């Protein structure tokens, strides 16, 4: 692991109206590392990563990739830096098929400049075959697919284009136990390939199983960041619920001040 973080978000702030959804939050991520973002609903986790993926424009703060200042103003910019996102809502166009979703915004084209649907379907069959070997419904619009199948399409889209930084927002929320395990295996595999992963999850067991570090947010502010091995599940729950930063963690601006 090198000294320069793959991604560093420094002093991020964004407000919607008077609501400071993300307030002065800094997180970083090294290559081959899984960093979990934890917090209650509305703590600002999804908003924070949506800034990184280009969906929201920050009010303040700087994003560095490989130590260099970036200009991420929209999702196209983020993708240019190799930042791919699996959204909690999956963000699939329900009325078109798996291949069209997989390549949305990055369609393969023939030498005439037209869509190369056959090549896209072939690539889609190949990548889906690895992720979800039972998947056969290549001609159906994704609206007709099951939750797990839709999830695999969203995952396939994120990993097919050589992502360096992967953001996973509740990747297992819609899945059964078996598929959840598949996603866990996938995360380990991607990590081994040197991809950095931001993982948002409600499942604290998952987080302890997969993450190297975790950052906890509460009311839009960073409570603290800790290595998984330095904290217990109870301490993490304390961070999430009370904003109390345990001794094993580095406190952030949102930590309870009288914590001792």
């Amino acid at each position, binding site marked *: 692991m090198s000294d320069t973080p793959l991604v560093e978000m420094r002093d991020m702030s964004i407000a919607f109206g008077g609501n400071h959804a993300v307030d002065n939050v800094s997180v970083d991520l090294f290559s081959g590392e899984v960093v979990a973002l934890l917090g209650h609903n509305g703590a600002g986790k999804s908003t924070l990563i949506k800034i990184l*993926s280009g*969906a929201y424009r920050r009010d303040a703060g700087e994003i560095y990739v490989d130590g260099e200042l970036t200009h991420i103003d*929209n*999702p*196209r910019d983020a*993708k240019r830096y190799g930042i791919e*996102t699996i*959204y909690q*809502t*999956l*963000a*699939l*166009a*329900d*009325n*078109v098929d798996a291949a*069209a*979703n997989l390549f*949305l*915004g*990055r*369609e393969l*084209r023939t030498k005439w*400049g*037209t*869509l190369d649907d*056959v*090549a896209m*379907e*072939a690539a889609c069959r190949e990548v889906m075959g690895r992720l979800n070997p*039972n998947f056969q419904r290549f001609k159906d*619009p994704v609206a*007709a*697919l*099951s*939750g*797990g199948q839709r999830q695999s399409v969203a995952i396939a*889209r994120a990993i097919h284009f050589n992502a360096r930084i992967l953001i996973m927002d509740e990747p297992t929320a819609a*899945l*059964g*136990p*078996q*598929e959840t395990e598949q996603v866990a295996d996938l995360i380990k595999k991607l990590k081994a390939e040197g991809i950095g992963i931001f993982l948002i999850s409600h499942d604290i067991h998952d987080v302890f199983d997969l993450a190297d570090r975790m950052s906890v947010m509460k009311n839009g502010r960073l409570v603290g960041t800790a290595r998984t091995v330095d904290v217990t599940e109870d301490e993490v729950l304390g961070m999430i619920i009370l904003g109390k930063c345990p001794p094993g963690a580095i406190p952030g601006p949102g930590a309870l001040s009288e914590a001792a």
Partner: protein
Amino acid sequence: MTDHTASAPVSGAREITPGPIGRFLEATEIDTRMLGMIGALAVIWIGFHIASGGVFLTPRNLWNLSVQTASIAVMSTGMVLVIVTRNIDLSVGSVLGVIGMLMGVFQAEFLPGLIGFDHGATWLLALAFGILVGAAIGALHGYVIAYLGVPAFIVTLGGLLVWRGAAWWVTSGRTVAPMDSTFRLIGGGTEGSIGAAASWGVGLVTCAAIIVMLVNGRRQRRRFKFPLRPLWAEGVLGSIGCGFVLAAIWIANSYPWPKRIAARYAEAQGIEAPPEGLFISHGLAIPVLIAIAVGVVMTFIATRTRFGRYVFAIGGNPEAADLAGVNTKRVKMMIFMLMGVLCAIASAISTARLNAATNAQGTLDELFTIAAAVIGGTSLSGGVGTIAGAMLGALVMQSLQSGMVLMGLDTPLQTIVVGAVLVLAVWLDIVYRRKTA
């Protein structure tokens, strides 16, 4: 959460072994919805044929029907893209009107002073001018909708009033006529048809194109080892397609020039006319060819280009398209520009057909265009629609209209029927979708 999730039968209820018709539809991959529309059209045609005492299904009426449908059909192809992205364009009738006036003045009053009367290039310059104006109006609508965030309903409702007023203002209400003699051909008529031989030529080229498409599609699927349609199904599809095309050409060719015009033509050409009169076929009308060409190009744009893919993706989930990196604002603006261009083409057809530009031209066309798209299966909730369906929808609307005229129904009654049919068609579509979804 149960442990059935992984293997939950998603469509168990529908997986009953299909009967012979089901198997046929499955093998040929024919769209059942389209089939339903063709069926409805057949019912309408046969019904009117009987009710009108046998004048509906004649070459003459069908030929006229095809010409009358052309203008709305052209605009309906653009309306599909507009509605697919969950927008609406209420201004197309007025835009058609103002472009018609501008093209009329341009060719009848501006150009003659510049390049002389009835110059060979007049029609082309007038058409190009109209298309430019259409693109500009569409770009303005699109900019306000996409970049300033004003809902399309409001922008184009405003456009409906603004452009109708502008159409009047071009000449303070005066009708401009006549149009350039070559420009007039765009509107059809005896002169504006391509005759028997050329029509057969168009037919054969179309048939060849159908066969090439089938063969090419098959080759592509084989290249990537995808499941292929059975050979007999390919054969059936090819035969049906070619059969339809050739039948349409045969009908167009069975409609002769009016006797007097034919006789005058014979005299001018020094041909000796037989006593029963010379039989000169109309063949396909130029506006019909334009509409078909527009349909082919628009289908290509909708299904084979990135732009088309984005249009449908935006319709399915605007946020997802945005997050996937699609420049949704630009795509929206381009859709309205395209709609403007199509209004210009439609305007050329109807102005040429009337041989005059009037400020009332295209009144209520927006409603017929929207109705055609919706009857043709474009869903107002976005994401679903086909160009061919919309054009067929335009034909259904025009068939109703012209059938009622043949039956001698009063105009107020006609509009009542058309309105009721629109609601009925959409209701049937909702029922159909609920059953298949």
